[in-house]
């Protein structure tokens, strides 16, 4: 089964971003993604650039909770084909930038 693609996340115990040990794992995952995005997009390896391109205020950005505010923007990205490829994963531009911002926090 391709279950190993999912590793710890298939059993429903995936983190919700709160202060549990699961949250740490979730944060680590998003930070890995963010670093990767920044490496692939050196022109966006900057907090201010990312904040501006995401159209969000500095105060709200940076934690995992902030990601959940981007749901509609993410869907809009996919609908308009605004995606990036990170290690083969097709991610919305907003997902990539938001993860990059978290990784800079």
């Amino acid at each position: 089964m391709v279950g190993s693609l999912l590793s710890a996340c298939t059993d429903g115990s995936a983190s919700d971003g709160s202060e549990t040990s699961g949250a740490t794992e979730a944060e680590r995952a998003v930070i890995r993604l963010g670093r990767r995005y920044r490496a692939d997009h050196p022109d966006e390896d900057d907090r201010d650039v990312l904040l501006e391109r995401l159209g969000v205020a500095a105060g709200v950005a940076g934690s995992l909770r902030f990601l959940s505010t981007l749901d509609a923007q993410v869907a809009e990205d996919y609908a308009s084909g605004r995606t990036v490829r990170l290690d083969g994963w097709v991610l919305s531009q907003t997902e990539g930038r938001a993860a990059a911002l978290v990784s800079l926090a």
Partner: protein
Amino acid sequence: MLIDATELPAGQVLRADLCVIGAGAAGITIARELVRSGLDVLLCEGGGLEPTPGSTDLYRGEVTGRRFGPEGSAELTDNRLRYFGGSTNHWGGFCLPLDPIDFERRPWLPHSGWPIERAVLDPYYQRAVDVVGLAGDRFDWPYWEQEHDAGTSPIEPGRLSAVAGQIWPQRFGEVYREELVASDDVTVVLNANATRVNVAPESDLVTSISLATVDGVAFSAEATVFVLAMGGIENPRLLLASNDVRTAGVGNGHDLVGRFFAEHLQTLAGFALLRGGPDQYPAFQAMPVAVGEHQVALSLVAQLSAEVIREEELVGAGGVIFTEPFPAGSVQQREGITGADVAHLARSVSGQAVGTSASLLVASEQQLDPDSRVTLGDDVDGIGVPRVRVHWKQAEVERRSMLRFCEVLGQELGRAGLGHVQLAAGGLRPSFSSSQSQSGSDYELDPGAVGGDFDVLPGNHHMCTTRMASAASSGVVDADGRVFDTANLYVAGSSVFSTGGVSPPTFTIVALAIRLAERLRSELAS
């Protein structure tokens, strides 16, 4: 009636109004259409009712260029069967019609365009439904979703289309043998291998076809009209081998017989992580559907829409999402962004947990290339016919279209809030073809290696080698399937396809065979 040619005396001449060579999907369909026509029809099949080593050996040949299978495998005998029923004795039964765009001239694809439009085939596709044993002539997923509870497709019309592949592996030989044998009009001749198409000098007519048993007993068939229906590799082989009077071979005045050999490329191109459990995705599992007496399995196929193909100058590509273990077993990824990372991201954004992994099995059409071709080899087979040499070529646009399909599918799943796609083709070890991945192989994925000239398997669909065209300068047969320079010789099967499309060929082969039989009936009646 049934004749076994091994019981015929050497030199026997069989006579009929119509002589069809080859009893696969095409030949059997033509013969059946002419049952009770009042015409005398000979259906000459090289093999018997079961495969034999002697008959199978006649299919051996040489493959140069791209491989059909792993080095050392029996590439030209594994992908065809030489006995009554032909390759439908082991085909998968996956059926879809060609799309309207397949018939168009697409300026970015050299040699594209058919001399007929898709609408010409519509009535014949309808009739082909019963011949193949399908559950109706609807192939749009929304119809099956609404009328037969076939599960919701996440694909909205736009950049992708959602079509319903109908799967029914009709065994033409078994199912239609009795009917043909009982017919007064049709004589099935088994163990009758065509060895040459005979044309008279200075004439545009075929006079006879030379035949032989595998033991070399020679006889022949004379008829008013002849049809070659021996499959996409043997049709050009026999035309090329018939080079005693016309030295380049019959129908080869423009050096086009055997050129443009096309296949379908297939590969495990990627994976998907989907929200919720597999039960939420019934459309991603082949679903049995019964309509009247016909029962098929339905498979949701997503395809690049005609708009995307045109805008981005691609070839047709599409695929199936499997939530079952097929075709991948476990996938290990040591470096880079993993599925677990993406699942965490998805959960953080949408609040929903990922619960289903899926594999993306993707196929593409081929861009036609005159150097991808069937020619004659240096050796001859046991009955004196030069063995075949197949030089298979592939083009960069084919792989690009497959990966673009995966990307657009990822965008569609993301838009619907259902999940994420990872492109994997090129990064899998072992490679897809060497793993013979039908059985749930385990893979290691190196995401840095994704793309490039990744590994594919052929669909076992041999097409375009006697392609249909509006003029002899660009094809071998005309819009009716008649060989341009030979008035009483027709070709049937996927060798007449002008381009291959991305749909599997057999449903179209049957539709074209019904159309040809209709034409022959009126031609021979007058």
